[in-house]
């Protein structure tokens, strides 16, 4: 009985999140905001459980996964369970992080973790260590300015185009490529 209730609750959650995303993909900004907000809580719980040994990485990876979900949102198929899609993205990013760390640990002394011992307390885990705002500065102007104007200041495409002297389509492309470049910087590709 309890299990049936539990499944029902999960299904309701899936259904609500899925509706929010589908409306978001159709251009409903508040719905998309709600989707990302709710998803970030699920991502945090999912990743915290699997990164028990690396609590400092949790929030960074939550943000990285959110960026991936956003950049790859066109790969969601409306006929597919949202949970399976989001879970696959989070798992992919988790494995990618562990591979990256493995490579880095091979280059550095794997036994130097006593330095980190006191710095890794739980309250810190709620803050991301990586500042995406600072990473933005590393993007070229044709990507950074459209993101700053459109995504941070909330201006329209036309306003951003006027401010930057770029065409409207160049502004859109700049936002799109800039967010992908941000993900590439985090991965260590750029």
């Amino acid at each position, binding site marked *: 009985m309890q299990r049936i209730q539990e499944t029902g609750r999960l299904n309701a959650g899936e259904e609500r999140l899925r509706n929010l995303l589908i409306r978001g993909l159709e251009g409903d900004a508040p719905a998309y905001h709600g989707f990302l907000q709710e998803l970030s809580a699920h991502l945090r719980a999912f990743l915290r459980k699997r990164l028990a040994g690396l609590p400092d990485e949790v929030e960074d990876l939550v943000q990285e996964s959110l960026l991936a979900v956003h950049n*790859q949102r066109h790969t969601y198929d409306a006929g597919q369970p949202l949970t399976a899609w989001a879970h696959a993205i989070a798992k992919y990013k988790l494995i990618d992080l562990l591979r990256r760390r493995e490579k880095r640990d091979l280059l550095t002394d794997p036994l130097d973790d006593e330095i980190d011992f006191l710095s890794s307390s739980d309250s810190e885990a709620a803050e991301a260590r990586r500042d995406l*705002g600072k990473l933005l500065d590393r993007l070229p102007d044709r990507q950074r300015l459209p993101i700053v104007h459109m995504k941070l200041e909330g201006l329209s495409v036309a306003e951003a185009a006027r401010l930057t002297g770029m065409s409207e389509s160049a502004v859109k492309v700049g936002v799109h490529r800039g*967010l992908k470049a941000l993900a590439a910087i985090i991965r260590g590709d750029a």
Partner: protein
Amino acid sequence: MRTDDLVEMLATGAGAVAPNAAARRYAAALGLGMLGAALLMGILLGVRRDLGVAVLLPMFWVKLAFVACLAVAGLFVLLRLSRPGLRLAWAPGALAAPVLAMWVLAVFALMRAHPAQRAWLFFGDTWTSCPFLVALLSAPVFAAVLWATRGLAPTRLRLAGAAAGLLSGAVGALVYSLHCPELTAPFLAFWYVLGMLIPTAAGALLGPRVLRW
């Protein structure tokens, strides 16, 4: 940046997303890739001179159907592999079926043939060049399909790379079959498959590096 701020930033001005992005991307990639392969063949090889006669032979159509089935199945597998959270289900079976069918045809052809004829049925006249030409013609498709896959979100990179390679190999073979004079099942069952496996292996090798996101 706090996570709430990131959420705010991502949602601001996100706009609508065009539906069927994956399908349109692959359609564009395949169109361009096939055009490239056709141009490459036109410049380097040309179509077979007796094409008008060949189209009357049933085996010509069996050959086309063989590679076309592989291309369709390869595209289907790749479409599933390039989106997170989709299972392959019966898709690998669709890929294996045309190959198995061609192997059965090949065994029958070899059994029925006169022993002296068997070597020719298998090697034909062009076995030394066929696999390489199939791989060569698949190169433009390979590049275009990898580009398309990069724009999606494969989570199993090696497998997705291999599927992209197989799809381009099958499309390359489809174009090549308008030039290729060979029409025996044993030849197709081995040398064509070998030619398609060259880009498949290249894709499996490149996938983890090229397809990361």
